């Protein structure tokens, strides 16, 4: 019907609409957007067809602009009750006013054009969205890569301590990080932090902050000085409106002393016999303003005590009803003992958030536990009665002499045969290791042996001159690997030492390295 009418009008006019009219007389009207809520929108939506501009009496900036552009007729394009667009028509080239026929024709055209326009609009929106999604995905990948590269690959292995960590990024990777920094004298630096903001910018700030912390940690023995230095260094580097919350703790793994400072990060919790202790230390987040002071908090961890460091991705997780996990729940969970605090906390959080929950923010946990046996060793180390002290030269086979002399020294303590044999094997392997690895088999170097006893334990200290060298890791024996030549019995020796005695501790001072073997005296301790 539409085409029929069009043809009729054309024939009436004796040709096409522009027949006989020079093209120079036509003019393109620039698009004039109609903001949602403009009175003109309401008029166009309710008009039911083309609207003559001259008939309109409206207070509308858009209408003023439309008039100024010389528009005479507005043809609304409406789809599903929404104004999709409008055709602005100037005066007819024939100088005749638009007839009612013209208006009907244009109205009919509009009704056909509108759905096609809508489809085109939707496709364009979708394409733009897809492009944006792709860009965001790419950025997330880069951010995740930066973060994963910088998080510790291994956990510190310290006799008498158990350190564990958990990190699970949210889909939109936040700026959580943690770090372990080995320090002199058997101390360990522990870092947990969170960069406000997400994605690549946060990951870059995290990387910068991590390097600054690592460098400052080697310079200062005080966590507050470390944070103050990093803060001053970070302020000029960090983008506006970004900052970093960060907790830094130094643990003396010998005495169990913890000193920490906190730049606005979640409070650390200490699980003790008497419940959970919050370790409060005031301080502003890093990167906000220079010259900040950080309070220091001290705590001595006893055996069996556990320090729990968290990020706000845990406390700010929500359940399906929108309730927050919160500090109360976290504290209650920490208060209950668990074989593995990390697993216990993650399980608790997951059952709170529900199975379908999408993780809102990065979740980071660092748990440091002082094991029960560490207390035993702390009592024994350097305390009690020195039963014997001697040295052997670093020649292979001399471990036999050391073992014989050690056995004579502990004979009055009345160890049963089984325990004595275990202690002998532990001492033999430790002395062998000191000879071959610590002293590199140089006969002029000595391996020192001290045998100490308290009422509770016997402690054998083996010292070599290899303090500056890294201590090899014990290897869990794997016969297949050994048969394939991938393992050596030396690594097995260290593994055996740990199995033979109740505790093994080692300390280095840069020149010497001492391994202390602790065995409980039966009946003295449960």
């Amino acid at each position, binding site marked *: 019907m539409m085409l029929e009418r069009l043809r009729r009008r054309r024939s009436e006019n004796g040709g096409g609409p522009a027949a006989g009219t020079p093209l120079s007389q036509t003019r393109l009207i620039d698009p004039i957007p109609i903001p949602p809520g403009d009175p003109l929108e309401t008029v166009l939506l309710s008009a039911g067809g083309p609207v003559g501009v001259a008939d309109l009496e409206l207070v509308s900036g858009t209408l003023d602009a439309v008039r100024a552009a010389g528009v005479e007729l507005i043809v609304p394009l409406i789809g599903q009750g929404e104004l999709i667009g409008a055709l602005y028509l100037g005066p007819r080239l024939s100088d005749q006013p638009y007839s009612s026929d013209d208006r009907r024709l244009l109205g009919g055209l509009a009704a056909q054009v509108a759905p096609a326009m809508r489809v085109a609009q939707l496709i364009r929106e979708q394409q733009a969205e897809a492009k944006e999604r792709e860009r965001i995905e790419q950025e997330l990948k880069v951010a995740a890569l930066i973060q994963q590269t910088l998080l510790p690959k291994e956990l510190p292995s310290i006799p008498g301590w158990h350190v564990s960590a958990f990190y699970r990024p949210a889909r939109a990777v936040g700026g959580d990080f943690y770090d372990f920094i080995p320090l002199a004298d058997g101390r360990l630096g522990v870092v947990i932090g969170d960069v406000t903001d997400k994605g690549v910018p946060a990951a870059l700030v995290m990387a910068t902050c991590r390097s600054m912390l690592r460098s400052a940690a080697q310079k200062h023995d005080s966590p507050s000085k470390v944070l103050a230095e990093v803060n001053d260094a970070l302020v000029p580097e960090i983008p506006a409106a970004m900052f970093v919350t960060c907790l830094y703790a130094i643990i003396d793994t010998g005495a169990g002393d913890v000193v920490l400072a906190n730049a606005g990060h979640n409070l650390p919790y200490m699980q003790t016999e008497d419940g959970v202790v919050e370790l409060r230390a005031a301080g502003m987040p890093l990167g906000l303003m220079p010259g900040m002071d950080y309070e220091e908090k001290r705590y001595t961890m006893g055996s069996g005590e556990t320090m729990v460091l968290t990020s706000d991705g845990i406390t700010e997780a929500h359940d399906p009803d929108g309730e927050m996990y919160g500090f109360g729940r976290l504290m209650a969970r920490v208060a209950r003992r668990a074989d593995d605090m990390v697993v216990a906390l993650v399980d608790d959080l997951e059952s709170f958030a529900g199975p379908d929950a999408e993780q809102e923010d990065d979740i980071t946990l660092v748990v440091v536990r002082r094991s029960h046996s560490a207390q035993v060793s702390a009592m024994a180390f350097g305390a009690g009665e020195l039963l014997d002290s001697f040295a052997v030269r670093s020649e*292979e*086979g001399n*471990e036999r002499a050391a073992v014989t002399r050690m056995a004579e020294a502990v004979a009055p303590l009345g160890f049963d045969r089984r325990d004595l*044999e275990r202690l002998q*094997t532990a001492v033999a*392997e430790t002395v062998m290791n000191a000879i071959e690895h610590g002293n590199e088999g140089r006969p002029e170097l000595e391996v020192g042996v001290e045998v100490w006893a308290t009422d509770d334990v016997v402690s054998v200290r083996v010292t070599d001159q290899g303090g500056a060298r890294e201590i090899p890791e014990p290897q869990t024996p*794997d016969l297949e690997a*050994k048969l394939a030549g991938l393992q050596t*019995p030396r690594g097995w020796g260290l593994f*055996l030492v740990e199995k033979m005695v109740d505790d093994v501790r080692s300390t280095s001072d840069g020149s010497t390295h001492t391994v202390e073997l602790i065995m409980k005296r039966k009946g003295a301790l449960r």
Partner: protein
Amino acid sequence: MPSANVTMTVREAAPRVRVVDIVGEITAFSEEEITRAHEEAARGGVDAVILNFEGLDYMNSGGIGLLVTTLIRAQRSGHRLLACGLTDHYRQILALTRIDEAIEVFDDEASAVAAV
């Protein structure tokens, strides 16, 4: 290098079953002796070689390494390697290092021979 404080003598316990009696220490220094004894025990082809540790008074991780080496040689020659006469302590060490999964350990020589 100190000498190997060990002697190993080979005898036949049953047809195609030989026993190596170990007296003394097994450490890294025992390599020559255990290589020689194992070769002697395997000579001419056997079903099993039994290491008799009744006379053992010391073994360290170096010695454990030698047991693994000997095990490899036994597997190559196609005979079984068994052990007997270990004290509880060294039995435990073979268990901890999981050597006992590859070298079968028996209380005494008679049960080892019977198991072949």
